[in-house]
């Protein structure tokens, strides 16, 4: 089991580490060559991308910089989600799988459970991404540099927030689509061939499997996928709201713990609640359309609640940004 987890971690981390190492080596090589050559300052002309020709040069530069970061975040999010979802497809069945009466049912159960558990991991990633958006707007050299260039606060705010926010949402959607496609390609539409009832051969020791299977049958994969998207939006916007709120007078890195505490606490709390929610997702989380376990989905209308809250949080953060001091 430990060997499988180590292998999984390696499969997950290898591309990320490989890209990071390649990037560092290429940057160092370029920097070393430039230092040796000691060329004079003769900047190359910067043609404007066709789509952005109507914008000022300052806006173009700022936007292009952030689109690059957003592209990286998008790829990382898509990779992470696809990895979490499809992990059961590539790892040998664990000891509990022997209890399952049907391999397709076990695979579908693992796939959907992976989706519900991804909320814990994603919350961490989303919260840190939100902090990474807030920090350079509130303090440090980056905040000061861009706040003293001729670009409006509104443009800085929306570029930073929307690039990261949309990259995460699009990355999550892509990851889900990728994982689902892989499932269909490798195993076929297994959710269509699940027995409608629990076979009689399950004995009294298999009550937990029976209960899980009953929950699985009433679980809506679509709702869980939608929940992942709305939860990302909710967590991101909530941290954005908190981090830009004028009550937090962030003037230096010393104030970072004020943001790190929720970032560490929320996923931890979700993990605990998730582990103790065998009877289904607690009502409060259902209201926010957060699915932490198998079971009947919350009413679809509840999805509007995190969407509305996210919009309110982001709007407030935008208003707070006008009054920030750096």
């Amino acid at each position, binding site marked *: 089991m430990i060997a499988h987890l180590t292998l999984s971690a390696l499969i997950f981390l290898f591309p990320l580490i490989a890209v990071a190492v390649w990037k560092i080596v290429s940057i160092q090589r370029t920097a070393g060559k430039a230092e040796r050559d000691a060329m004079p*300052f003769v*900047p190359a002309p910067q043609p404007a991308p066709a789509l952005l020709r109507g914008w000022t040069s300052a806006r173009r530069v700022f936007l292009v910089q952030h689109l690059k970061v957003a592209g990286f975040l998008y790829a990382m999010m898509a990779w992470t989600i696809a990895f979490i979802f499809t992990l059961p497809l590539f790892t040998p069945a664990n000891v509990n799988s022997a209890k399952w009466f049907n391999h397709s049912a076990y695979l579908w159960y693992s796939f959907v459970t992976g989706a519900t558990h991804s909320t814990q991991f994603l919350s961490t990633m989303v919260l840190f991404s939100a902090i990474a958006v807030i920090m350079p707007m509130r303090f440090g050299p980056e905040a000061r540099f861009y706040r003293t260039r001729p670009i409006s606060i509104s443009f800085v705010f929306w570029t930073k927030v929307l690039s990261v926010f949309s990259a995460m949402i699009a990355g999550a959607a892509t990851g889900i689509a990728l994982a689902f496609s892989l499932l269909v390609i490798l195993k076929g539409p297994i959710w269509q061939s699940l027995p409608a009832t629990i076979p009689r051969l399950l004995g009294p020791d298999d009550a937990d499997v029976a209960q899980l299977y009953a929950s699985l049958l009433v679980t809506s994969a679509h709702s869980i996928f939608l929940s992942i998207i709305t939860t990302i939006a909710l967590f991101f916007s909530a941290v954005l709201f908190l981090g830009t709120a004028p009550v937090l007078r962030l003037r230096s890195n010393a104030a970072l713990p004020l943001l790190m505490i929720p970032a560490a606490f929320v996923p931890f709390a979700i993990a605990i609640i998730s582990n103790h929610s065998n009877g289904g997702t607690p009502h409060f989380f259902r209201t926010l359309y957060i699915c932490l376990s198998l079971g009947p989905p919350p009413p679809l209308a509840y999805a509007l609640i995190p969407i509305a809250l996210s919009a309110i949080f982001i709007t407030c953060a935008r208003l707070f940004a006008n009054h920030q001091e750096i």
Partner: protein
Amino acid sequence: MTSYAIQTKALVKTYGLGSKATRAVDGLSLNVPEGSIYGLLGRNSAGKTTTIRMAMGLARPTSGDIRVFGLDPRHDPDRVTVLAQVGYVPEDKALLGLTPRKLLELNRSFYPATWSDVLARKVVDRLELPLDTAFLKLSLGNKTKAALAVAIAQRSRLLILDEPTTGLDPIALDELLRLLVEDCTADGRTIFLSTHQLAEIEQIADHIGIMDRGKILLEGPLDDIRSRFRRVTVTGAALPTTHPGILSIRHQAHATQYILQSAPEAFAQDLIANGATIVESNPMSLNEIFLELCRTSESTAADREEEFA
């Protein structure tokens, strides 16, 4: 009519709340004429950087008003218009972690209308700035040079330099002063700099403001200030202790020393008319004026605190 690059009226900036509140800037009224080289002088914590941060829209005044070219740097779109015309070197010279070349290239794209590659190369050459050294390997002096190159090459209408000489060796400092005079004051452009380097600033500034405890103690053209201030050593009986021109009085063994801040000739005539003998009358350097003003301000503040207690 004089137009001003920066103008403040009763500007106040308070940090903290309740009993922990500190007035970093306390009723500051400053007038920086367009086309001048204005040196804002002051001790540590005098409020210079806070004033500059408010001019750049990085901090919001608690009360009072601040205008840059008549515009409010707090609110867009005025803020953007102001920033398009201002080059800025911050106090800590921390610069995004880029090499000087990348920083120049980045900043160039923010000011396509005014940026000069030729001037950028000139500043790089004259200050001997290494263009491709990683930010972490740059010395403090080289970080300062990079920040200066970036701001100067913008060819902005107003150049705001917060402690622009930090870490510079005497040769680089001399080159900087030349560059500022030769290349940054053409076409009525303004330089506003805060510094502790009084001797150097005296060489290039034509206007001076001296700040202490958030207040402006003295402001005006440097030549006017020099002609107004005088150290006069006097002997005689019944010497005056109050006069609008007296900044401070020091009693020595056999004489009295007056530091005068205005109308020294008129005061000298009064003294002679009252039978006093002027032993010595000397003009004062900017450094001496600065020290006298700060000492007087300190003792006045201490007296006030005692009264309050």
